[in-house]
């Protein structure tokens, strides 16, 4: 059963984490046992979802390609082989040993795709890493404080949401590049950092201005959605009794937001961020396709499609292969996101989890190892809650 293998792997990963935690702070394991058990349950549930596992491995492949691609590619992204042999221009797959063909400048498509993976990975990471937290913070403040601040933030958010993502991104992507170029020229440290991140050569650094503009454009376009969602969640979460209890104890607003409200609403946000990883990839590929993002010679999947479109249908491979890459990568994040959604919600988690055991014969006294208390949700009694695995006191201390 492949599920068992994955479960073993999960256990190994969790043990590894425990080991690291223990090394850093002794006693970590006991303090976080309940948390670790919860993760284990979630990962077991995840292991049982076929789409989830497919997504996981595809994404893993994408990340590996992104990290190692630039070092594994047979040719460099700026090796314009056309210089060596003019015949290498626009060759279909198979010719001269180029597995996926070449582009206008004779660059090997396989190599460019591998490099492009890194570029896509970095762009997505930076966008999500900045866009989501900004959105969350604004949403927290807006939802919790209410009143004028809420009104202000919401109106600004409305303005941004009213614009179609692509249109707004295009606007920024047109306006920003010259300023980014100035910035890059002025700061060699920034250039070095970008060069290292994107695995390109120093002399091509200024060509990154297009990509950086696209990133900034996407960050600006992306945060409003999170603000809206977080605000909605906060509005209902702040009515929780434990929030009131925390206020009564004198807990400060920031602590309430970070410790009491955020952890309880993070589920859907996490799912959305995962799904958005894929959306960001598609958006930036689209922008590149329109000629806005990556500038030559920076390899980027959308840009390659742009090149290929100019000689379509003769250069079909320049469209098909990058297209498949974008599609597969985006799909993988969607699959993961969907499965995460099912796994994070305790109720839907059960539907993918353990199968029902065979019907027990009557009067069988089977003792489970860990006493688990489950109050069954039988219709209608208002004061009952269904609780998860519990340890209850079975026997009182007898004197």
């Amino acid at each position, binding site marked *: 059963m492949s599920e068992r293998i994955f479960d073993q792997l999960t256990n190994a990963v969790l043990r590894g984490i425990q080991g690291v935690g223990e090394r850093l702070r002794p006693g970590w394991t006991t303090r976080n046992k309940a948390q670790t058990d919860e993760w284990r349950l979630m990962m077991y549930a995840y292991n049982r979802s076929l789409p989830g596992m497919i997504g996981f491995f595809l994404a893993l492949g994408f990340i590996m390609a992104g990290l190692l691609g630039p070092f594994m590619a047979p040719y460099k992204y700026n090796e314009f082989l056309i210089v060596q042999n003019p015949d290498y221009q626009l060759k279909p797959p198979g010719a001269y040993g180029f597995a996926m063909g070449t582009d206008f400048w004779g660059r090997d498509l396989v190599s460019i795709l591998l490099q492009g993976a890194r570029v896509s990975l970095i762009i997505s990471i930076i966008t999500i890493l900045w866009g989501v937290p900004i959105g969350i913070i604004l949403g927290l403040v807006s939802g919790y404080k209410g009143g004028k601040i809420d009104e202000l933030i919401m109106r600004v958010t409305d303005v941004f949401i009213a614009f179609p993502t692509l249109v707004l991104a295009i606007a920024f992507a047109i306006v920003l590049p010259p300023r980014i170029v100035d910035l890059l020229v002025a700061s060699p440290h920034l250039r070095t950092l970008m060069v290292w991140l994107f695995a390109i050569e120093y002399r091509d650094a200024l060509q990154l201005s297009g990509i950086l503009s696209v990133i900034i454009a996407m960050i600006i376009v992306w945060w409003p959605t999170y603000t809206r969602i977080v605000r909605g969640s906060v509005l209902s979460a702040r009515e929780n009794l434990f929030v009131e209890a925390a206020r009564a104890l004198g807990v400060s607003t920031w602590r309430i937001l970070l410790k009491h409200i955020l952890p309880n609403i993070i589920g859907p946000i996490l799912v959305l961020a995962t799904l958005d990883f894929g959306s960001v990839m598609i958006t930036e590929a689209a922008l590149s396709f329109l000629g806005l993002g990556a500038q030559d010679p920076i390899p980027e999947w959308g840009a390659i499609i742009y090149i290929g479109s100019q000689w379509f249908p003769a250069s079909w491979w320049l469209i098909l292969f990058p297209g498949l890459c974008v599609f597969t990568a985006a799909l993988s994040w969607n699959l993961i996101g969907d499965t995460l959604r099912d796994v994070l919600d305790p109720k839907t988690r*059960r539907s993918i*989890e*353990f199968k*029902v*055991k065979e*019907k*027990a014969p*009557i*009067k069988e*006294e*089977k*003792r*489970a190892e860990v*006493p*688990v*208390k*489950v*109050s*069954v949700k*039988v*219709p*209608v*009694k*208002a*004061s*009952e809650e269904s609780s998860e*695995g*519990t340890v*209850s*006191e*079975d*026997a*009182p201390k007898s004197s």
Partner: protein
Amino acid sequence: MPQKVLEVKDLYVYFYTYAGVVKALTGVSFDVFEGETFCLVGETGCGKTVTSRAITRLIPSPGEIVKGQILFHRPNGEVVNNLELPEEELRKIRGSEVAYIFQDPTAALDPLYNIGSQFTETMLAHGSGPKDEALRKAVEMFTSVRIPDPEKLVKRHPHELSGGMKQRVVIATSLSNRPRLLIADEPTSNVDVTIQAQLLGLLMGLRRDFGMTILLITHNMGIVAEVGDRVAVMYAGKIAELAPVVELFERPLHPYTQGLLRAVPNPLRRIERLESIPGTIPNLISPPSGCRFHPRCPYAFDSCPKEEPELIEVEPDHYVACLLPPLQQRRKG
């Protein structure tokens, strides 16, 4: 000799969940006689609600009635086992011969339709006459549950009514087909104490006027004392004690019943300290062996974890499920 209306024999209900098999009911048996108010009392998880649902097979998945008989004496004289009836027949019983009232009347009323149409829907479903006839009946019924201005009420929507009113509407609807047995599951837990007094008074009056039998589920011993004729105390899926109400309060025999009665503050008496029952309610996936109450029982001895006590009659109509020797010796018959 009063007639029996319901006989529950050896009922077992299990829930097959992802965490294990929850043995909600294991061998529940009791009889309900005509015209009486029979109370099922117990705390959370004791199985009283499951029992009430099982009577007309309203147990949702993953629950299943695995064993037992539920003999219902129909108004036409027939005695049927609800667990073996075909669905069509059972549907005829549900709603007309056996009616339910639940804790939350809001859940029973559709917010989109006005009261009148909901009432007539029930009646028409069970084959009563044309619509205006049914509406007239509605007004009649609402009057009998002492709703002021019943003609205006039929046009109102559920959200315009208070909790107490809604409950009266639900009661009226349930009684519209003159059921033989009314099962009331915590009907007053959601309302204030003064409204509760009104509703209980109403129910008792209606029972008299309509000649009904009531099966009342509650966790409140006070209500049992006020309106009950006979009572069964349930614990962890079994009946611990069954007796006439007066008898139970004067001479509770089961240690759990005794503990329960001592834990309830009686406002008319001065008590220094409430006696609590140590421990917590057991989990029903792996209940304690033998007598399920033994881990919390002050009188537990060596047989208790080994043997499951059966419900035995120790005095006329007074049954206990306990292994204590004095009780076993008084066993009759």
